[in-house]
Structure formats: C-alpha cells, structure tokens
C-alpha cells in the first residue's frame, strides 16, 4: 500500500529541494485562497451557496467538472499505472472517459431540469417520499466520504514525497492542514469560490500536462513508435507493456475483475454526487449539456497526454526507481518532471497536484454538506419548514463536521491505496445512485419502495462485497508471503467474493431490486407524477433558471 512504502522504506530520499517545494506549495495555496475570497460574493441564499447562483457558463462549468474529475488519483495514478504496467493503465483511462457519454445522453439535461441542488430533489419530485430522500442523502454521503478519504490519503503520500515529511505525525499534520484549508475554502467561497479554484487549477493542470507531454515527445523525436519502443526496452517486462494483460490477464479472476471494474467505471460517473451537483451551477439544461461536452474534451485530451507521460516515465525514469520511491506509482509523474525540468518543474507539478487535492476535497465537502443540510435537515428533520438562511447555516456547520471527519478518517486511511478507494466510490455510485435516477426519469412503474430497495440494496451489496473481497483480507503475495490485503495479518481470511471490484454483481442486482421492489409494491406508481417529471425533464418547464438564463 502506498503509505506504508512512504513511511518505511526510503525515509532519507526526497526528490528536489524541500525548501523550494514548500515555497512553491505556499504560493499556490495563497493564490487559490485569494481566488476563493474574491470570487466568493455573499453566499446568503441556498442557490448561492450550493449552486454558485447558477451563473456559470457551460465552458466554465465544464472545465470545473473536469477539474473535479481529474483528481490527484487520476492525474498521478493513471500516469503512474501506465509507467509500471504499460497498456493496462491506459485501459483504465478509457472507461473513465467513455462514462461521460452516459452523463451527457441520459442524465445531464433531464437532471438539470428536474432538480434544484441534489439528486434527492429529483427523486422527491417523482416519488415524494421522505424516506427516499433520506436514502438518497445516505448514499450521497457515503460515496462522498469514500472519495474524500481517497483524496486525503493521496495528500499524505504526495507531501511525504515532496517535503520529506515521513513521520506518521508529520503526515497527520499535513492531513490536518489540508482539512483546515478545505474548510476555509468551503466556508468562505461556497460553490462559487470553489468553482473558480477548480477552473484555475484545471487550466494549470492542463498546461502542465501539455508542457511535459511536449517535452517527452521532443526527447523521443516526435515519434510515438520510438517512445513506445524505448519505454518497452527499459522496462523489466519488455514488450509485454505495449499490450494488455500484464495486470489483468494473469488469471480468470483477474480477467473478470477487469470486466467488473470496466462496468463500474462506465456507469459510476453518472452517479457521482459531486459531479451531478455541478450540473446545477449553470442556468439551464442546454448549458449543462454544453458543460459536459467541454468536460469530455478536457478529460479526453488529458488522458491522451497521460499515455505519453506514463510511457515517458517508464522510459526516462524507469520502473525500478518508481517502485523504490515513496508513493510508488503516484510518484512517476513528479519523478519525470524532476528528470526533465529539475527542481522547479518538479515543485510546480507537485504544487498543482496539491492544489488539485485541495480543490477536489472542497467540492466534495460542499456536496456532502448539501446532502445533509438540504435533504436530511431541511426536508426530513424540518419537513421543509427551514428557511434558506438557516439551511445555509446548517450546511456550513456540516461542512466543518465533515472536514473534521475527513481529517480523522484520512489519518487512518493514509495507508490505503488511493486507486482502490476511488474505484470503490465508483462501484458504490453506479450501484446505489444510478438505478434510482434512471428509473425516476424514464420508467413509469417506479415506486418509493423500488427506490429504497435499489438505493439501500445497491449500497449494502457493493460495500458488503468489498468487505468480503480479497482487497480486505486473504490475499497473499506468493513470493514473499506478505499480505496484499488491507488486513496485514495473513491468518485472517474471510474473503469469499473472488473479485476486487463488486460492480459486475452489485450494479445489475441494484437495477433488479429497483424493478422488483416496484412491481411488488402494493401502492402503485402515480401516473401524474411520472407525467410531471417527464414533461419537466424533457422540456425544462418549471426548472429553476440561473441569473443569466
């Protein structure tokens, strides 16, 4: 696991100069703070706080969504996976990209037209049942917390690599600092401030990736074939890195594991609460659609560049040095930057990655605080009697609580694998969130009971299967006899589910439960409500419009 290597093996080795790294880090943090402060505005109403006044344009929001999506896990993780495993890392990125088409075609416009801030709004419009709204909040909070933990764990690994913070205490302090900064962004900036931080960060990330990509291609004489050839030549696995199967082709379980992961990736994005919430920051459905097209371009071009970055790191840095560095795969891009541009480029890349973590955790915190304040507090606890001022106040308090939870959780989770936590969040999102959204919008017979069955069923099955998978217990490295699971004691083994990713089982089951719960419901579906949500979803009548809309 990432953090273990960071703590033990290479305490002495820090790349670059920690002092310079620290100065550039501080500079980036300061710039983003100024942006958040200046963009913030008043944030008095719920629309301001949750949706940035619905005043962002499609391109602005599209870049911000891309920024949310290109978290440190994908920025550092995918390029690192390519650097170590070659083609199989590339396979990963394609699922992440294609999943945006599900968002664009099925979800973006209809969801923008029928909700105000959360998917709980959409389910409420269709089913008007308090328990369903509560269930939607529970699944949104669970997914956001998994995602938050992943980012916090990533922050610890990154900082240990770049600032030479290797002690457990030092990493805990780093995680606490990330938490404090994130709470500050959210309280001061609201959705508007956070979005602007996200936009600036996404642009910096794109420039940085483009620069290093061009640099690597220049080294390779602008020949992709030469780059691949040289990379394969310097890899211990040789030409095997140029094709699929290095990681996912070993056994039948590994093959089905990849198919399961592929299903979770392609359906997961359309269920991620922090992505869906961003659809509400634009004036109308047309702009929501336009944002997703921008996101597709940003994310797609970025992933294409990670192909060059990954093989570039394999060629110029080498698998052995990456494996030996703290953070392993996650350190491939920073090491490549150091190799090419020295301390300054390294520190800049690392600072952008750090800003990425800050911006993503801030976005997640807003989403989680909205799920609680808007769906649980205002609708379930107060039955819609709470005023907007009070709701925003509760949302702010929730943000602080979630920040503290994430810090404490992050301190425990720092030894977990970042990519694993993210894949988990995708599987849970596709199982617990997506079926009820699709059924609400498009299936006439959907009922409240069907919604509860699919949300809680999807949540329990996906999380449960992970607990009883080799990820948590019972996986042993045949060569060294060390545990490859979260539980280090190799004698404890309660894994009965053979796959790391639950998607192939939990996603179809969640759809099935939604169907079964509805058709066996004694209280039939209300055709008037279905007519209303479909008319609103497709025409946009009654949708809350933005200030420029």
């Amino acid at each position, binding site marked *: 696991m990432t953090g273990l290597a960071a703590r033990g093996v290479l305490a002495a080795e820090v790349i670059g100069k920690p002092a310079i790294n620290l100065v550039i880090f501080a500079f980036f943090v300061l710039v983003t703070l100024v942006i958040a402060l200046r963009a913030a505005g008043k944030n008095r109403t719920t629309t301001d706080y949750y949706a940035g006044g619905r005043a962002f344009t499609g391109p602005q929001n599209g870049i911000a969504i891309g920024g949310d999506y290109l978290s440190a896990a994908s920025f550092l993780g995918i390029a690192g996976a390519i650097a170590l495993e070659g083609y199989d890392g590339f396979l990963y990125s394609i699922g992440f990209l294609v999943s945006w088409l599900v968002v664009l075609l099925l979800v973006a416009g209809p969801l923008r037209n029928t909700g105000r801030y959360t998917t709980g709004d959409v389910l409420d419009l269709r089913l008007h049942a308090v328990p369903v709204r509560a269930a939607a909040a529970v699944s949104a909070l669970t997914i956001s917390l998994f995602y938050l933990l992943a980012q916090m764990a990533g922050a610890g690994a990154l900082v240990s690599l770049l600032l030479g913070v290797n002690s457990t205490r030092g990493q805990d302090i780093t995680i606490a600092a990330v938490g404090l900064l994130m709470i500050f962004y959210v309280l001061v900036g609201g959705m508007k401030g956070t979005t602007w931080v996200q936009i600036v960060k996404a642009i910096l990330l794109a420039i940085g990736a483009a620069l290093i990509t061009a640099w690597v291609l220049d080294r390779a004489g602008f020949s992709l074939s030469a780059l691949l050839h040289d990379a394969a030549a310097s890899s211990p696995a040789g030409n095997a890195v140029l094709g699929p199967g290095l990681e996912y082709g070993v056994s039948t379980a590994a093959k089905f594991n990849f198919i399961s992961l*592929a299903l979770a990736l392609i359906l997961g994005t359309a269920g991620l609460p922090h992505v869906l919430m961003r659809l509400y920051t634009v004036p109308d459905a047309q702009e929501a659609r336009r944002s997703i097209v921008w996101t597709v371009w940003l994310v797609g071009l970025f992933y294409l560049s990670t192909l060059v970055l990954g093989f570039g790191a394999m060629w110029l840095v080498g698998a052995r040095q990456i494996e030996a560095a703290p953070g392993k795969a996650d350190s491939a891009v920073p090491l490549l930057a150091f190799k090419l541009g020295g301390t300054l480029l390294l520190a800049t890349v690392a600072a952008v990655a750090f800003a990425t973590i800050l911006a993503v955790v801030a976005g997640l915190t807003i989403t989680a605080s909205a799920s609680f304040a808007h769906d649980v507090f205002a609708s379930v606890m107060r039955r819609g009697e709470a005023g907007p001022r009070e709701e925003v106040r509760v949302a702010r308090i929730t943000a602080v609580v979630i920040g503290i939870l994430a810090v404490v959780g992050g301190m425990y989770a720092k030894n977990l694998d970042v990519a694993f936590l993210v894949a988990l969040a995708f599987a849970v999102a596709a199982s617990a969130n997506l079926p009820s959204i699709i059924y609400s919008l498009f299936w006439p017979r959907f009922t409240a009971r069907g919604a509860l069955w699919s949300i809680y069923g999807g949540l329990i099955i996906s999380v449960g299967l992970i607990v009883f998978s080799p990820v948590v217990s019972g996986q042993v490295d045949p060569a060294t006899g060390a545990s490859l699971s979260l539980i280090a004691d190799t004698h404890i083994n309660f894994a009965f589910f053979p796959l790391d990713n639950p998607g192939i089982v939990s996603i179809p089951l969640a759809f099935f439960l939604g169907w079964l719960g509805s058709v066996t419901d004694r209280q039939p579906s209300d055709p008037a409500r279905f007519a209303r949500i479909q008319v609103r979803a497709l025409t946009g009548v009654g949708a809350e419009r933005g200030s420029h809309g």
Partner: protein
Amino acid sequence: MSVTQSRGTASGYEVVHRSREFRTLRRRFASVVVPVTVLFIGWYFLYVLVAVFAPGFMRTSVVGAVNVGLCFGVLEFVSTFAIALGYNRWARRRLDPLAGRLRERLDAGRGR
C-alpha cells in the same frame, strides 16, 4: 417563481404528457439516445473483451511499436469525442426548439 413549491398541479402535466407534440419530442429523444447508448456501451465492451480475451491480437503491430491495441484505444477516444459533439449538435437543432415551444406554452398555460 418555480413550480417546485406548488404541488398538486400534475394534471396539467398529464394533458401535455399525452399531447402529440410531447410524444413527438419523447420519441425523437428516445430514437437517438437509446441506440447511441447501446452502441457506445457495446463498442466499449467490445474493446474491453478483446483486450481481456484476445491480448495477442491487440499486440499485432501496425506501425513499428504502435500496435492494434493502441489504435483501438485511441479510436475509443475519437468515438467519444465524436458522439459528444454530434449529440450536442443534434439536440440543439432537433430537441431544443421543440422543447422550447412546449415550455413556452406550459408557462403561458399556468397563467403566471
């Protein structure tokens, strides 16, 4: 004001839901979204299944070290860009005007 607050006016929506214009809009939406979704999910899983079960084919060289797998992967990117752009353009031309007309009529019908 939005209608989020005014509950129980669904019957008006039911009339629209049954109207010919809305049914045209819904048919048009489904006639493109359903086949395109089936197509891109199928195309993606074709890629995944070939990568998992026929890795040898993916290693076939096309030009130098560039092999079939890489070209197939890049084609997935190209098709994603094309579908995103194409769908948005189509929706703007074929869905939005019809949706806009229905919306205006409904807004007027609500008498506010």
